[in-house]
């Protein structure tokens, strides 16, 4: 038995007493489920009961009983998660399992063990009906994962631009750059949360720059047998290593990097994505999931993307075919086949997209603690409200969002919210409020961080940036995101935000293809809003044609497509405007823009197709030859050589090698507002 030195007989008696009660409840609930298979209370109760039985019997060393209970728990876990329905044959298997448990318990109560009882048949049945694969010993595959992990460059990370910025900022503040390594004991059953204990404590007292393995999004648990954290701090070394005083955390090693090491770190550049750890040899990780190399997923994605393009071509062929006479029966068949293909491609795309999505909770969940501890450190009372944790977002976006969002929240706490004294004087509740929320809006994810602090001092920003009084306060506030706007001295001076907000914005706009803006009211708080695409790889686009070539406009940027005739147009000097919803917006001929002659003004025919595009900074109307159709395109980056005027945000390649360029609408609006290339 697992407990030596304790009064085993007493334990056993307690176990049997409790087990009897558990079995009674189990039986009642199973009978209830037989009448109503979807009763959620009973499903949850059975899950809880089998879970208890599993833990208790394992503790006393009844391995077979524990395994049987465990398998039942798995089944009910899947039913709870709606991955499995309670069919008649499954119900029968569950009853056999329950009978077997009764039998084992009565044996144990007679002083026998569970070792002679054959549980394999029943377990096999549960596994088969529950859709679980055969469970081999997980230990066999650990080696493979470890070997793969060891092959990774764990000690010498390649830093992303934001992380490099953090390093140089830290050096400027006079902090040390350190590398902390710990081992998570082999005895630890859940290594990721255990490593997380250390990571979380570090995040609270130091500035964590990089971790290996990634701590924001959990990876295969076996990778976390070692954790390496790159951080900056001005605390004494023993304060930092003190966070390693956690059960099953071993061999803490803190290394303060010297100048050469830091320089070397900063000089490393991202050499493309490192192959992720492939665990093809260790195929079983959890009952319901399997790890796949992200490169393989991307490959599948790419292929589905091409499929959508051919699907579109086929639809067009079908349209042409249907305009001709004859062959009616074949036309009908082609139509049905095309429809099915369309539906399946769409579903396939959805399904593959799903594999990349994770709930944003993986990121949001670290904020309560961050806010709690930071607020205590700063002597401020803060209430944190989090909404929309279930919102799903692309895994790579979550990873990229972690640092900027943490930065924004730290700023809110540090500079946005006032000291309790100041809040009292301003007749505000002493407890400050920060709310973080996420929701999906159309094809975008909206993330908002709001505080009820003192707000931005727009006057000071105006003065500092030398902006005249015609510009609205709202626009002036956006200057906190301008490159190079904030420097260290300005921060405290500017009543607020500003620390590295330009870097935050660059990260969101350039790396994540998102948008960020700020709304602020003096004394009434600040709201930072981030708009992100659902994914960085597939873009829902409107394909248009111009001078015989195809281009794509992201649908998320399109306000409307319009027909424009001469009377809708306002001409001022050489610029042409369109009166759109009472707003004067620039009309740009796509061809002139592409040729670099946007300043020549658009040439209008009697009836033109226009696409009104919209970004945070404004709108423009783009004249095109033809609207072709909406497509989901797989985006690939393009080289600067092909894009020296930055008109495109990417491109997609068709199977036959033709390229569709994706127009960068922000850039086109910029051109429209400045009256052609000369103004830029």
């Amino acid at each position, binding site marked *: 038995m697992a*407990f030596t030195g*304790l009064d085993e007989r007493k334990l056993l008696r307690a176990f049997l007493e409790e087990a009897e009660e558990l079995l009674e409840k189990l039986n009642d609930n199973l009978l209830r489920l037989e009448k109503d298979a979807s009763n959620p209370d009973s499903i949850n109760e059975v899950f809880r009961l089998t879970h208890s039985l599993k833990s*208790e019997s394992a503790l006393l060393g009844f391995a077979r009983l524990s395994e049987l209970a465990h398998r039942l728990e798995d089944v009910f876990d899947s039913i709870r998660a709606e991955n499995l329905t309670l069919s008649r044959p499954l119900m029968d298997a569950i009853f056999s399992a329950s009978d077997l448990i009764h039998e084992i318990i009565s044996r144990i109560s007679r002083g026998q063990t569970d070792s002679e009882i054959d549980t394999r048949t029943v377990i096999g049945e549960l596994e088969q009906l529950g859709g679980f694969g055969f469970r081999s010993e997980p230990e066999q595959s650990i080696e493979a994962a470890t070997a793969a992990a060891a092959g990774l460059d764990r000690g010498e990370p390649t830093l992303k631009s934001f992380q490099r910025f953090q390093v140089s900022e830290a050096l400027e503040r006079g902090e040390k750059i350190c590398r902390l390594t710990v081992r998570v004991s082999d005895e630890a059953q859940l290594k990721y949360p255990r490593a997380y204990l250390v990571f979380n404590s570090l995040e609270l007292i130091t500035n964590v720059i990089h971790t290996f393995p990634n701590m924001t999004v959990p990876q295969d648990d076996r990778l976390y047998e070692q954790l390496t954290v790159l951080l900056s701090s001005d605390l004494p070394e023993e304060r930092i290593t003190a966070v390693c005083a956690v*059960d099953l955390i071993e061999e803490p090693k803190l290394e303060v990097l010297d100048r050469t090491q830091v320089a070397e770190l900063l000089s490393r550049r991202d050499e493309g994505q490192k192959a992720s750890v492939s665990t093809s040899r260790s195929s079983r990780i959890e009952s319901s999931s399997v790890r796949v190399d992200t490169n393989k997923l991307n490959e599948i994605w790419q292929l589905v993307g091409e499929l959508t393009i051919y699907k579109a071509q086929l639809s067009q062929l079908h349209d042409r075919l249907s305009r001709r006479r004859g062959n009616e029966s074949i036309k009908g068949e082609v139509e049905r086949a095309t429809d099915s293909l369309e539906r399946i491609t769409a579903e396939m795309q959805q399904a593959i997209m799903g594999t990349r999505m994770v709930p944003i909770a993986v990121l949001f969940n670290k904020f*309560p603690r961050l806010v709690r*501890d930071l607020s205590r450190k700063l002597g401020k009372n803060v209430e944190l409200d989090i909404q929309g944790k279930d919102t799903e977002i692309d895994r790579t976006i979550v990873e990229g969002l972690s640092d900027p969002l943490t930065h924004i929240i730290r700023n809110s706490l540090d500079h946005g919210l006032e000291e309790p004294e100041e809040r009292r004087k301003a007749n505000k509740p002493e407890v400050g409020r920060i709310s973080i929320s996420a929701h999906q809006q159309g094809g975008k994810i909206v993330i908002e961080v709001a505080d009820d602090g003192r707000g931005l001092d727009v006057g000071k920003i105006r003065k500092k940036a030398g902006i005249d009084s015609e510009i609205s306060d709202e626009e002036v506030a956006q200057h906190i995101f301008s490159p190079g706007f904030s420097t260290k001295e300005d921060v405290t001076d500017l009543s607020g935000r500003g620390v590295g907000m330009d870097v935050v914005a660059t990260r969101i706009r350039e790396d994540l293809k998102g948008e960020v803006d700020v709304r602020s009211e003096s004394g009434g708080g600040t709201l930072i809003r981030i708009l992100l695409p659902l994914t960085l790889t597939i873009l829902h686009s409107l394909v248009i044609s111009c001078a015989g070539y195809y281009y794509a406009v992201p649908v998320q940027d399109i306000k409307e497509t319009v027909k424009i005739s001469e009377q809708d147009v306002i001409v001022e000097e050489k610029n042409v405007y369109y009166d759109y919803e009472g707003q004067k917006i620039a009309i740009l001929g796509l061809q002139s823009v592409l040729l670099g002659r946007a300043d020549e003004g658009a040439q209008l025919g009697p009836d033109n197709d226009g696409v009104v595009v919209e970004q945070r900074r404004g709108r423009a109307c783009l004249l095109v030859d033809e609207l072709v159709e909406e497509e989901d395109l797989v985006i690939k980056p393009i080289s600067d050589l092909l894009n020296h005027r930055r008109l495109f945000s990417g491109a997609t390649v068709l199977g036959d090698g033709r390229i569709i360029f994706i127009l960068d609408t922000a850039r086109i609006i910029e051109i429209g507002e400045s009256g052609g290339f000369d103004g830029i």
Partner: protein
Amino acid sequence: MAFRVLLADDLYFMRMVQKEVLEAKGFQIVGEASTGTEAVAMYEQLRPDIVVLDITMPEMNGLEAMKRIFALEPDAKIIICSAIGQQSLIVDAINSGIKDFIVKPFKPERLLSAINKALQG
């Protein structure tokens, strides 16, 4: 003076095991709660040095109880008792400020070591 411990688990058996282990090492068990609601009430009344809190409990689960205890005492020392499938709940709890967690079924030294380390920190 002995450290004062509050145990919270809906299973009497589990509490008994923990009690045996801890009392053998000189800890004082000041209270035993079998629901989350009880755990919070007992915490408020007894103000123990440390709480061992099971996640899965009827009425109010361990995580909710944890939140309420932190609301009463932000520096409360809490160890969560969990099962292998509850990884994301554990991470939530770490973010909220628990000192450590133990995974069921556990060996006595895990409980002791986690409690000792948490009381030092």
